[in-house]
């Protein structure tokens, strides 16, 4: 798997305006995040060579895949990449085994059967090898699509809303599997999503798209945990994602202490060693604000913070309060009434009570 920096730059004015540039380091997971209609999928299609915008540069390491300036265009079928489509795009007339074999044209014929077997094992599809897509569940189809994309021995793996079509419970386990695969193969992944959970749980880098342009780009913890993310007030579930270090475990209380940029958090025991880095996610609905230190609470984390900004949320009666706690940016979704009664104006000191912290041992 020839890893190299993926560099994407594109610009078009029709059929809709799009001006995007970003780089994805080898082995990184870059999330293209934004509302539908922001041009996310088109960016993936440009990387894959399925769409040719007026102006584009797509390079991977030293290889130029698209360069409209020099007229370079490597056809889609010659690009070493795997594409998992939103609806999986499995071939209805082929069995699982045949789908995988179809994508192995770049390998010598003699080794293909062996490779199919390895891919079936990798995606835990051995028992389903003879089935056609119609006889597979949504989660199974997703695994086939992923295995088929990996069959290409891709330098870059492109995922278009990979979990949109599966239910919530399955999403968790599929994310876990995907991350494990990404780790073990050190794949460069570009992921399109409008679900911040995907960003928080999978991505190392984030490119936020809005109406065809990059609104912000950077590493996930830097961007969401330390800066004001553009458009966050419009998200269905505003949240921040951070990378934290495991400081110590308190086995008697079944708690783990985490530290992130001067912030300390106690969370239910995390299966990660001391010193390990974990990704944490704090939803704006999980943060309660108080003007005085309360007593007798079931929650563990009461953080001293300062109001940075107050935004109107997606709903009329709610406000999204941006807080600075240590070096970390937190979000809290409160009522407009609470903003008035607590005097939440920029600069005001406030206590942030963090109810729940989602922890993933991926980061």
């Amino acid at each position, binding site marked *: 798997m020839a890893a190299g920096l993926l560099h994407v730059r594109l610009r078009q004015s029709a059929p809709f305006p799009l001006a995007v540039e970003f780089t994805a380091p080898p082995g990184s997971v870059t999330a293209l995040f934004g509302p539908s209609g922001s041009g996310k999928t088109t960016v993936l*299609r440009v990387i*894959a*060579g*399925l769409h040719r915008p007026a102006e584009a540069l797509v390079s991977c390491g030293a290889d130029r895949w698209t360069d409209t300036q020099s007229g370079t265009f490597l*056809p*889609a*079928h*010659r*690009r070493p*990449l*795997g*594409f998992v*489509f*939103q*609806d999986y*795009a*499995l*071939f*209805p*007339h082929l069995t699982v085994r045949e789908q995988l074999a*179809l*994508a192995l*044209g*770049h390998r010598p014929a003699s080794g293909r059967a062996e490779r199919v077997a390895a891919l079936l094992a990798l995606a835990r599809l051995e028992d389903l090898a003879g089935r*056609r897509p*119609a006889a597979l569940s949504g989660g199974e189809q997703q695994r086939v699509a992923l295995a*088929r*994309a990996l*069959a*290409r021995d891709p330098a870059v793996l492109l995922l278009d809303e990979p979990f949109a079509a599966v239910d919530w419970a399955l999403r968790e386990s599929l994310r876990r599997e995907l991350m494990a695969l990404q780790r073990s193969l050190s794949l460069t992944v570009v992921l399109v999503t409008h679900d911040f959970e995907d960003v928080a749980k999978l991505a190392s880098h984030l490119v936020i798209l809005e109406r065809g342009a990059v609104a912000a780009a950077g590493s996930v913890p830097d961007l969401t945990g330390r800066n004001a993310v553009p458009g966050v007030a419009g998200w269905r579930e505003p949240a921040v994602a951070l990378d934290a270090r495991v400081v110590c475990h308190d086995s008697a209380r079944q708690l783990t202490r985490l530290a992130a940029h001067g912030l300390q958090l106690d969370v239910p025991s995390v299966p990660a060693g001391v010193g390990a880095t974990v990704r944490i996610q704090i939803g704006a609905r999980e943060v309660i604000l108080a003007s005085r230190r309360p007593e007798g609470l079931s929650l563990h984390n009461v953080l001293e913070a300062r109001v940075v900004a107050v935004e109107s949320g997606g709903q009329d009666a709610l406000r999204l309060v941006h807080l600075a706690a240590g070096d970390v940016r937190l979000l809290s979704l409160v009522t407009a009434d609470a903003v008035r009664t607590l005097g939440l104006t920029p600069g005001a000191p406030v206590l942030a009570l963090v109810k729940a912290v989602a922890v993933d041992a991926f980061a």
Partner: protein
Amino acid sequence: MDWTALALSVRLGLLTVVLLVPLAFLLARTLAYGRFRGRGFVEALVALPLILPPTVLGYYLLVAFGRASPLGQAFEALLGRPLVFSFEGLLLASLLVNLPFAVQPMQNALAAIPPNLRDAARCCGLSPASAMRRVELPLALPGIATAAVLTFAHTLGEFGVVLMVGGSIPGETRTIAIAIYDRVQAFDESAAGLMALVLLALSVATLGVTNTLSRRMASRN
């Protein structure tokens, strides 16, 4: 019962299917996926035999195949006999007349393949040619079968165009449909009735086979 005429019709039908379906598939694919100027015009041209009276179409083909036309002269120079009133002329006419019956079902079937599947084929490393062979062709199979059956059945039944460009030369251009007409003209009701019955049975059998096939293919996909 004119067995020669029936054999000729079947031969004409099969040859038309074998020659037309592959060519029409490529044309159908261009029309289904191509984005080019004049596509609407080509589509209209393909559909023309559907609405044009067979005698009108036959008349123009007669002119185009005639000894005065470049096509007719070229054929005669090459094979030493005229194109009109020959089996070859009939076959050529049959290919043109059946164009819509062959192109349209395949074009619809190809257009119905989700674009994502064709993209996925490219992203699986398939060149356009192998994507056509391994993805588009199998997925369009019901449309291809329909095209073949319609073409065959329509060739058996075609009357006006055949009469115009082929006439009624036994063993050369007298098809079963022409033979039935001949027998009726000669007040040979029993022969006409028998041949009509054979043609009817053949048509019903063809439709039955197609229905079974397409149902099987539908359940497979």
